[in-house]
């Protein structure tokens, strides 16, 4: 039983890494193919959030479909508008949370709930 739990635990640990690894290189897409054509759910969540209303589009976090693509955006993607928050988070490296998305939902960009972020007093605007 314990061995089974360890195996399940290992699978959970490894699987996300495998998925992220695969998404480091986005599959080639025709130039006129829009993100929404494959990622409709994420697009809908984003569109109905504040960043969607302000047209902070997919490319800001995820880059283009070339070498700049990333499935898991780093802190720098948010710095253009949230420089102080990013600077505070960078200082806090070594603590558990290193990414804006530790506290903020990936596409709605709302707080996930729980206590306010330890990295900036008011949360992202």
């Amino acid at each position: 039983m314990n061995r089974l739990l360890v195996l399940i635990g290992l699978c959970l640990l490894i699987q996300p890494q495998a998925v992220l690894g695969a998404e480091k290189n986005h599959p080639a897409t025709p130039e006129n193919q829009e993100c929404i054509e494959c990622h409709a759910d994420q697009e809908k969540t984003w569109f109905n959030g504040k960043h969607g209303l302000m047209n902070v589009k997919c490319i800001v976090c995820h880059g283009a479909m070339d070498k700049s693509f990333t499935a898991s955006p780093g802190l720098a993607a948010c710095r253009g508008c949230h420089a102080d928050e990013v600077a505070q988070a960078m200082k806090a490296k070594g603590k558990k949370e290193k990414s804006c998305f530790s506290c903020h939902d990936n596409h709605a960009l709302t707080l996930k709930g729980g206590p306010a972020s330890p990295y900036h007093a008011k949360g992202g605007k």
Partner: protein
Amino acid sequence: MKLTRRELMKYSAALAAASAIGLELPLPRGVAAAAGEPDKWVKGVCRYCGAGCGVYTGVKGGKVVAVKGDKENWNKGFLCLKGNFLPAILYAPDRLQYPLLRKGGKFVRISWDEAMTVMVDKFHDSIRKNGPNSVAFYGSGQAYTEESYFINKVFKGGLGTNNIDGNPRLCMASAAVGYVSTFGKDEPMGAYDDINHAECFFIIGSNMAEAHPVIFRLVNERKQKGKDVKIIMADPRKTLSARIADLHMSFTPGTDLAILNAMAHVIVKEKLYDQAFVDKHTIFKTMVDPGPPPKIKKVVWGDYVKFLDDYTPEAAEKISGCPAAEIVKAARWFATSKATMSFWCMGLNQRTRGVWVNNLVHNLHLLTGQICRPGATSFSLTGQPNACGGVRDGGLLSHLLPYGRLVANAAHREEMEKFWGLPAGRIQPKPGLTAMEMFKSVNSGATRCLWVACTNPGQSLPNVDPYRKGMASDDTFLVVSETYHPTRTSELADLVLPAALWVEKDGTYGQSERRYQYVEKAVNPPGEARPDLMVMIDFANRLFTAMGRKEEAKRLFSYKNSEEVWNEIRLCSKGTAYDFMGMTRARMKKAHGLQWPCPTEDHPGTVRRYTSEYDVLVKQQDPKAEGVLFYGAKADNNRVSIWLRPHKGPAEPPDAEYPFALTTGRQIEHWHTGTMTLKVPELKRSAPDAYLEINPRDAAKIGVKNKEKVRVTSRRGTIVLEAKVVDVPRDGLVFMPMHYPDRMINSLTTDAFDALSKQPEFKICAVKLEKV
């Protein structure tokens, strides 16, 4: 993007090798993140639109590697999609690094000395043989104020020709003439701060969400925080901006004059106007003969009321297709809110009745007294970062002299001749060629030498194809100062001069709310690229030396840097309505922008003009004045004009042969002709190509589905584009983005222009559509 150490090492090695042989390599995205914090942050302003967002550029190892919004500036630290990716524009692979001369049909690299020699020879020869009016300059609302002021001085003051105009003629001229004809002086009286106080926003002819996203963000913030804030959006397309609207008024393109008069009709009939304000501050005018020169007659309130009789909401509905009930609702919200702020942009300005429709928006504010109070103002949005500061204020239009002075005004000419130390009569009394007239003059061969700087008319002019032929012709020597090569203009040039871009040089930008901001130099330009100001100074001194006027050149054009020009500019503004003597360079370096008038170094700048509570010039004009004083309208005893402007449709409405109206505009990803934004991989991926936006009903009519090809034909040209079938444009209207050099949408647009502002009607022409 996470750059691996291996990738970083490879990049660094490549950079070192490239530097050793004098090559510049583009920075891959994510270098900043991988390499840590920039060494320094340099304060500046965004390179793109007229919003003028404060930006810090992060510099590391002599390169701009990051940007962040300036929290202490009006934009509160926010940037739009484009601003977020600014560093990449500096490192595009097509940066021009040395002068190019066309020889035997090919461009060859030459030295700066040879370039200046060739250019001076051509201009000198033309002036000697054909007089100073045979040469011309076409400038830009993107050049720094110091550059525009200097070259204006060279042409109007030095050479004695007024053939100098700028691309704001294509975007802001109607707004400028609208302000001048209503208020006596150009530029808005209000500020972005009014957004924080407005209870009603009237947004017409503007897709702010994409064209001015950070201003749109402020409006949305106000909407979310204010309990009863109403937003009226009047636009034939239901754009992304309309997502926050309480009322979206759709109408047939070009019929908004009828709607605005009908709103005034409702305000008058329902007695929603401010009688005391109208009595104290306004007069009524009508144009009895369009001229030129236009013949204007003063009329009275009763005439205005009678004029409005024709514009019942029902009558306006018949003309415009906008429901009468919506017109009534909009008029009531506009008049009765605690404070109403209007915004408009190219939808009103790029029209053959651009000035008139601007006047009609001002009319609503004057009738209701919704002006010169916090939140109550009539605010024109600006397309370029320095159309206001450099061109409208600085006078780089063929009918203007700096800071509110006019070419046609003898006293103003005399004033500038004395200020610049010129012989009396040097400045010519007749306004020079406006943009479209200038390119017609190139076509006719009358303009022998044309210098185009910091703009791309080979793509951006309406009905562009005949003008491209003129620019390419051997009859005119075309000099193009450009950052990139080839562009759709530089490809036509005889001589291309490599230009420093944005934070590769220093200078002053003046944006929509009269805020002037200093952009500090952060990095060196690549190769042999130089700041345009330095090239202009070099050119002026060499040309005048060649003409045997070396001593005069020494007196007029001896500047070492932009600060010396700026100090002269401050003096030139002194005592005018623009007075910014208080904006010393030292102060501007520290400040996050200052709003003129700002006459002394201890003056904080002026948020709202024409009211004694905020504007120090009111008391200077009349020490007894309290509250509002429209001192710009001195000729009319400080009373501003409510204009009787009848409805008139576009120059080329749809008809049986060309049944659709075509309008052009912006996408959030791109800016103007895409020379900068299309070099940013992320922006290019997000918005890779032009398309024809058409609603599902019209698409069904022509039998075309989403992503199928459509042939779009106007009376001037044809292009084939992919259809984007979305329910955004109203029936009978199609839209195309304006940015793509490989899709010359201006092959289709009309070059008909407004008789008063000379601004062309990019926004409406007739087309037919066929499935390919």
